[in-house]
């Protein structure tokens, strides 16, 4: 992992709140500081505004209260779908963001080939997305973001649509990428084991209006291996976070 200056903040939410034009209070008093090199996952019930939080952090959605501090020029973003351009081959898709940033053609072709190899898609450069499986498309999507070498990488439930086995493999690969590249991670998910396996810290969000109710330091050493999922301490951590999540639901009243 790359070393970062001690305690340098890469992403900070300072009392951030979000009220939509229709009056819905989506987020309230969000306070979260993420140090450079940390990997923080946010878990919460569906509809709690955790996706809204990444959209705000990346600048896609202007927030209505508080302050966000982040270097938006170096943000990687992975959506719930792979969002590949169907009319471009994998090579062209991985080059896209560099193209929009004005990287010269020969440079971006070389970088794209490197990233494609890194995510294990070598040999598929000239395939169209529709010929690839869901997991392969998500890999191409990761390669596309990695090509810009982002310092902060945001993930908005990227593996939700994949089957269990593909998902676990991609999570292992993401851990690997995180160790190699040393980016700061913000990962949105509704899967507690996924969050614990990936992260240095897990934040629990309450139902709407979304608030961060508790955060948990996860101190399992990296690299994390699949066996970790069966470690009693891992299971215990998941249970603790699960109870914290249930507690937020109970204080918010009966489930809808």
């Amino acid at each position, binding site marked *: 992992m790359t070393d970062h200056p001690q305690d340098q903040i890469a992403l900070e939410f300072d009392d951030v709140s979000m009220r939509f034009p229709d009056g819905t209070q989506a987020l309230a008093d969000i306070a979260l500081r993420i140090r450079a090199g940390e990997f923080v996952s946010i878990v919460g019930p569906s509809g709690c505004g955790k996706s809204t939080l990444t959209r705000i952090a990346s600048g*896609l959605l202007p927030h209505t209260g508080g302050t966000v501090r982040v270097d938006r020029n170096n*943000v990687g973003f992975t959506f*719930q779908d792979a*969002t590949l351009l*169907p009319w471009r081959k994998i090579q062209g898709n991985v080059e896209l963001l560099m193209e*929009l940033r004005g990287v010269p053609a020969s440079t971006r072709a070389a970088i794209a080939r490197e990233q494609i190899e890194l995510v294990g898609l070598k040999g598929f450069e000239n395939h169209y997305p529709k010929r690839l499986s869901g997991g392969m498309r998500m890999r191409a999507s990761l390669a596309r973001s990695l090509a810009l070498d982002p310092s902060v990488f945001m993930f908005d439930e990227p593996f939700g649509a994949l089957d269990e086995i593909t998902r676990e493999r991609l999570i292992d690969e993401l851990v690997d990428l995180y160790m190699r590249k040393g980016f700061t991670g913000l990962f949105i998910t509704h899967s507690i084991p996924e969050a614990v396996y990936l992260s240095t810290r897990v934040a629990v969000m309450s139902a709407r209006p979304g608030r961060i109710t508790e955060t948990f330091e996860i101190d399992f050493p990296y690299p994390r291996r699949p066996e970790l999922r069966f470690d009693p301490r891992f299971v215990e951590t998941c249970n603790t976070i699960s109870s914290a999540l249930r507690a937020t639901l109970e204080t918010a009243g009966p489930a809808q």
Partner: protein
Amino acid sequence: MTQTITAYPPTPPKPPMPVGKRLALTLLPPLLMGLALVLLYAGTRAQLPEHRQFLMPGASDLWVQAFSRPDVLAELGARAAVTLSIAVVGLAISIPLGMGIGILMFRLKVMERAAFPYLVALQSIPVLAIIPLIQSAFGFGFLPKVLIVALFTFFSIPTTLLLGLKSVDRGIIDLFRLQGAGWQVILWKAGLPSAAPALFAGLRISAGLAVIGAIVSELFFLAGRGGLGQMLINSKIDFKYEQMYAALIASSALSIGVYLFFAWLGNRLFSDWHESGGKSS
């Protein structure tokens, strides 16, 4: 109470159908239908009193009077070229204009609100009804015919393009916005490629209409060197019904040809990546 269980034996897979049988099942129905239509034509012709049988020329007359005569074939070719040129120039006006208006409506919501009702209204005007007006305004040359084709083909272009542009994946637009891309870049690199298959469906309809529009426009313009439409009218005046039928057949062949060309082009452009394409994984 006792339970009754039944044994279900497996069903062996059906042997694949022999190629000959499969071919016969595909080709026979349209062939039989064609034969039925020919018999219907011949039957109707036989019912007609002799002095009215010119309305439905027989196959041998059609061959002797039209398709076997080099001068008639040459005329058909030359006239088809004139009709095609009217149709193509008309499309060359309506396609860029329609795309421009579609893009403008997409870019400016206020333009969509302002223009859309009039586009619908324009479509509801029967083009045939304003041909006399176009004649009065623009005379009898090439331009008025081209304008008629443009009117015939215009409507489906801005509407299909607008629909296509509006259904671009939100995530893809967000992806571009995150890199600070301006609307021109988003339009060029995401909007137009994404909308292209929908636009092409519109173009295919417009292309077929263009040939029809060109022929209809010629029915109203008998002066000068005209296309197949003029031949239809002239052969009626000259009482050469075999040639009229030849012109009819040439007209529909032209229309089908233009449609097939656009269908082929669309398939070539999009089948590699679009959902509707043939080569899916």
